[in-house]
């Protein structure tokens, strides 16, 4: 298949024609899913805000199901497909493997998305994102997710095949770039994840049409979380890769150590998908030994990997800034960073919020005994809004400010608003996560329509602080939705009305990445090492916060009823 290669005059990135179109379409499909997810988010927030309580119960559960599916599956994975094609075809400057198959995968994902959404909005499938059996959804709810997953799996296959093509056609020499390595990690985890998903959703689909009589509810939970949590690890790998990408593009930062960063990605592959067990810590069907093994040995190596990235990403930025001469004190490198550039500010807020809020809360939540204090409370969505939203979504938003000019050849409109958006979204979403965790610590349930328990035979009055936390959840939730809506507006507005940019030279042949000369290798070796004291201080701050918060929760646990 004949194709062409365009070299972007601004970034120097080289886009193969088919890969470029696929990236655009996947990104646009992702933004549409985000729009649906954002509208439903607003309805969810306005219902859980006790002073407003907008929707009746049936609509609330329907909308909450749609919010989970549209955000956690559709938005994130469509965008990740674009990231995979970018990290393979664009960064390695090669043609995309089997573009027709890639298009088939894309349309399969589109059909699946629509099918599942139709099932939800028909009203017979308000089973939540987790769709725990024996509660049953309409068959096309499961079928849509299965089609979407098959499409995503094919997309991963295209990514792997593209890596092979680049190697065979020698478009680069040496090893693949770190960002591509991170994307490779994401794709490998995605493959595992989708197979686990097939392992549970296929039988569930057959059960929904009556071909299988019964599915064990505990077994479902175990296998489903092989899909449910592992899919979040795809996100972690993808957004960490994007952190490195942004650090490289904005600062010219190079990894402190290729070895350490790649090893940390490898730990994700080896250990993260097994961490799914931490969803089952308060379940009856597993032994304590199984729980401890799965949350410690398997999870803590993955935690270690995230702690390593949390050090090496800002470390790489600090080193790059210090090389440019920002060497005063501990933090001049950070003060003089381009805070007005949404690519950087979005990425840095993502990094800090993911580390301090999402990371710490996740590990505490995933501690066998402490889990009993938080399981199924509002703490859980509080936690994952600071991982998958301020972590992943914000990183994706930040990189989009970079991609609109180079990929869509449009200038971003309203630059002032672009500057504000990452702060509005990132900060309000971080605070939202915090107050949600606060409400959860006070016992407030997730996925719950009515704090007043109307229709119940008894009364239970939540503490006043719980109502305060839920009120704050409402306020910051609305602000976060505004921040997200602003991003959609800016991106869609720029695609439609942004100033058209020069696309650059088009050629029928790819230009390979020039091989490293001996000279540049020598420069990179040893002698240019820069110390990163500011990053050390930030990392130690994270560590102290981590340790304190961890032990505070043991203290809380020691005060409840005795259990054995």
């Amino acid at each position, binding site marked *: 298949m004949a194709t062409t290669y365009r070299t972007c005059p601004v970034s120097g990135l080289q886009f193969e024609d088919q890969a470029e179109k696929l990236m655009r379409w996947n990104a646009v499909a992702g933004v549409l899913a985000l729009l649906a997810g954002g509208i439903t988010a607003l309805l969810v927030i306005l219902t859980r805000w006790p002073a407003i309580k907008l929707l009746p119960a049936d609509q609330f559960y329907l909308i909450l199901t749609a919010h989970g599916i549209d955000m956690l599956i559709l938005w994130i994975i469509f965008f990740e497909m674009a990231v995979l094609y970018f990290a393979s075809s664009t960064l390695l400057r090669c043609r995309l493997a089997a573009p027709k198959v890639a298009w088939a995968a894309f349309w399969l994902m589109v059909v699946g998305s629509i099918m599942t959404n139709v099932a939800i909005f028909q009203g017979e499938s308000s089973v939540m994102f987790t769709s725990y059996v024996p509660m049953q959804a309409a068959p096309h709810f499961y079928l849509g997710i299965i089609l979407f997953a098959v499409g995503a799996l094919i997309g991963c296959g295209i990514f792997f095949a593209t890596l092979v093509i680049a190697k065979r056609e020698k478009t680069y020499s040496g090893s693949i770039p770190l960002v591509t390595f991170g994307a490779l990690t994401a794709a490998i985890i995605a493959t595992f994840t989708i197979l686990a998903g097939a392992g549970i959703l296929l039988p569930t689909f057959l059960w929904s049409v009556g071909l299988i009589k019964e599915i064990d509810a505990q077994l479902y*939970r175990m296998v489903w979380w092989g899909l449910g949590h592992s899919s979040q690890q795809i996100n972690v790998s993808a957004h960490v890769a994007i952190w490195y990408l942004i650090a490289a593009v904005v600062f010219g930062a190079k990894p402190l150590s290729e070895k350490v960063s790649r090893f940390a990605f490898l730990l994700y592959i080896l250990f993260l998908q097994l961490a799914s067990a931490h969803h089952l810590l308060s379940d009856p069907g597993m032994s304590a030994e199984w729980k401890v093994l799965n949350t410690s040995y398997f999870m803590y190596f993955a935690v270690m990997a995230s702690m390593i990235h949390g050090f090496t990403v800002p470390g790489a930025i600090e080193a790059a800034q210090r090389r440019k001469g920002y060497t005063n004190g501990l933090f001049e490198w950070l003060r003089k960073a381009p805070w007005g550039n949404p690519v950087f500010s979005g990425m840095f807020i993502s990094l800090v919020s993911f580390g301090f809020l999402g990371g710490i809360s996740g590990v505490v939540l995933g501690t066998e005994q402490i889990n009993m*204090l938080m399981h199924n409370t509002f703490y859980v969505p509080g936690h994952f809004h600071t991982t998958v939203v301020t972590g992943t979504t914000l990183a994706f938003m930040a990189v989009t400010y970079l991609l609109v000019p180079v990929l869509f050849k449009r200038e971003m409109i309203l630059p002032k608003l672009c500057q504000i958006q990452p702060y509005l979204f990132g900060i309000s979403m971080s605070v939202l996560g915090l107050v949600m965790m606060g409400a959860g610590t006070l*016992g407030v349930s997730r996925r719950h329509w009515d704090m007043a328990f109307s229709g119940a035979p008894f009364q239970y009055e939540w503490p006043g602080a719980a109502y305060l936390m839920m009120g704050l959840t409402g306020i910051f939730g609305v602000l976060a939705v505004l921040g997200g809506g602003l991003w959609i507006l800016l991106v869609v507005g720029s695609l439609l009305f942004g100033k058209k940019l020069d696309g650059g030279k088009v050629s029928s042949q790819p230009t390979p990445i020039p091989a*490293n000369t001996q000279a540049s*290798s020598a420069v990179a070796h040893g002698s240019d090492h820069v110390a990163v004291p500011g990053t050390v201080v930030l990392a130690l701050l994270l560590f102290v916060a981590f340790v304190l918060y961890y032990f505070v929760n043991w203290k809380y646990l020691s005060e409840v*009823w005795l259990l054995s």
Partner: protein
Amino acid sequence: MSAILPPSERLWWKQPIDKVEWAWIAIAFIWGMVMFVMMIYWHVYGKQNLSNETYKTTPEMFAAKAEKFIAENTVRTETDQQIPVVKVPAGGDGYLIARLWAWYPILELEHGQTYKIHLSSMDYLHGFSLQPVNINIEVIPGYEHVVKMTPTKAGTYAIVCNEYCGIGHASMLGRIYVK
């Protein structure tokens, strides 16, 4: 030169790792070990560990056992729905049914006594969320979970269902009295 290009040093895996990075990796590793040991330590010395005692059951079998327990130990009924209040014998077994959309029956306990509370669901998943103590346990149909509980303070406690179980989920509220 950067993360979006192949590593400038072809033999990147032979490059030495900086001391500061080693130190951070060591901290992360040791912290992981501390957190691992903490969970085991709590199993030995801690007083709040979730029971491992679980049996396969069916809704019919569990309901039969619970009805027998209720028939033998009911002390009174409450509310216009005549929900039985069942006094669990000190040190004995109590049964709590989770079903759409109620916790049944009301249990009466004494503080400082230890009880074996049997939990199971008749239908969907439910979530046992004891408030304001804030203990949360998943309740799964087909599994009978025997949890040993020792209330530490007298009072009236609520059991909120915190696993989504359909349209009436938010009205699924139960009660435990502790004397």
